[in-house]
């Protein structure tokens, strides 16, 4: 499933302004077309998962290597390309382990202090919502079939 990682690894042109929607759209659409080309139509769930991986990869590449979560995402993707890793378990939050639950959710959250975790969460949320917006836009434009 390394087709997504071929979505280019050029550095973020404007690191100070944060991730740009245009770069994200460019990367994701390219990865998407690659997926559609390479995956056989029969394996539907497989394609869905590949697209999801493409989404995370394009998100991480757009965010750049300056963010701990993007590095963790790319690390995870590259490792998964070689071997099937176990799925992270998602426990519900209880009073005691809210911070732990957040660490599980945010990639790379295990190895940082609470302060950095909050910062990474904010950036991760920004990028995730950008990605969701993009995908929703694609779906909307694709589903506008004529009468």
């Amino acid at each position: 499933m390394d087709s997504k990682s071929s979505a280019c690894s050029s550095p973020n042109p404007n690191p100070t302004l944060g991730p740009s929607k245009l770069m994200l759209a460019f990367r994701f659409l390219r990865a998407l077309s690659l997926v559609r080309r390479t995956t056989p139509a029969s394996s539907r769930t497989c394609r869905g998962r590949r697209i999801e991986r493409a989404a995370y990869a394009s998100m991480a590449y757009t965010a750049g290597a300056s963010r701990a979560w993007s590095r963790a995402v790319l690390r995870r993707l590259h490792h998964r390309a070689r071997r099937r890793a176990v799925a992270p378990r998602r426990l519900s939050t209880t009073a005691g382990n809210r911070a732990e639950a957040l660490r599980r959710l945010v990639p790379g959250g295990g190895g940082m202090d609470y302060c950095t975790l909050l910062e990474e969460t904010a950036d991760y949320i920004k990028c995730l919502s950008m990605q969701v917006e993009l995908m929703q836009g694609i779906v909307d434009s694709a589903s506008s079939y004529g009468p």
Partner: protein
Amino acid sequence: MQHGSREVRGGMAASALHDDHGPQQIQNPGLHDDFFDQMLSGLPSAWPDLGNPKSPWDASAAQKLFRIDLAGKPPDESQPEAATEGLRYASYDEATMLASRLSQSQGSGGSSPTGEAMMLQLNNHHILPAVGLSRTAVGGGVGESGLLPLPLTLGSCGAADPRIIVETPRDEMDPPFESPDHNGGEELYNGLGGSIRAAQPGTGQHFHHPQLNRQQGASMSSQNYGGAAAPAGVGQGPAASASSGGGTPPQKQKVRARRGQATDPHSIAERLRRERIAERMKALQELVPNGNKTDKASMLDEIIDYVKFLQLQVKVLSMSRLGGAAAVAPLVADVSTEGPGGRAGANGAAAGGNNDSLRATEHRVAKMMEEDMGSAMQYLQGKGLCLMPISLASAISSAACRPSAGGLVPAPPAPPTSAAAAAAESPAASSSASALTVQSAAADATAPKR
């Protein structure tokens, strides 16, 4: 006073060498020399014992304090030329005041370490972005405007900064600096501390003018913001002991507690950490919808839920991207399992005989969706069917079974098509996402996570 400026430069270099624990040095040593030359060119005997071994510290401290003063000016960076010009003229006076004050304090002791400490504190705490600004804005004229944000953040950061500044410099100053005598330091510190304290109610004016008492009576002393500072400066002994909780000998470099705050470095670091966390939580609050929770725990819960929601949305959207194919397959399976139950709950108009044909239609539509969404929709509409979210379909079918919705919602096919609707993208894409969410979340529960 050319020799004065040279001394200043030397002092700057020396202080730069010693600033190993204050990594953010506000200015490079050689940068503002020309500017400072201009400043000091007309100074009267304001820099007396510059040959004195202590004087490099004084000079550098004054310089640094001077920088603070400059930075206290309103940030007029749109016209750097004019601003720096004005700054030069104004700061000329301030430089003289500073110099006089230092000379006054020098009689009682070196004031530089506290000034240094003050600068270092300013550097270290909360001013990092401004420092970054100032560091990049190099050059004589521009350097000053780059420093402008510095003390503004000082005041705007609220009570934290002044406390920190007031409290910690002694501790940090002790190890690296040989501070021979700090009486004058106390006094100067007092003055500036008074200015800081007085700055709290004010906004950007706090370092506008240093509270320096000229021996000769300065023209600017009236402008001295130090109505609090001047008496503080004058009465150094009582001021020092008054501000501290207990009597601290003027010679000793001791952190002055501020209104019962702990002076321990640990608790200060802890407070810093808490403030940083509060900052980040505030930023997160703006990102997360419903982020108006005041309780930290519920705010964290909101954040966690929102992240989970966004990740789920990505998953769902990535599955629906394929023209609904991936989403349809598990959903069709679901429909077949819960078909009887659904139909049992459906309105009575649903004839049993229709079920098989409906199911065939459904499968056909699913296959068509894989190839071309548009043709699938047209096929459905040709059949008099439509796609709709499950919630809407169930609401309609439970409310009424009259086929009166303009041919759009025929009752019999409502249950199975609602399931099919859940599988594909409906015109109301957002609501389809919710239906998809419901279905695919259930369908995907056993599927391995990414």
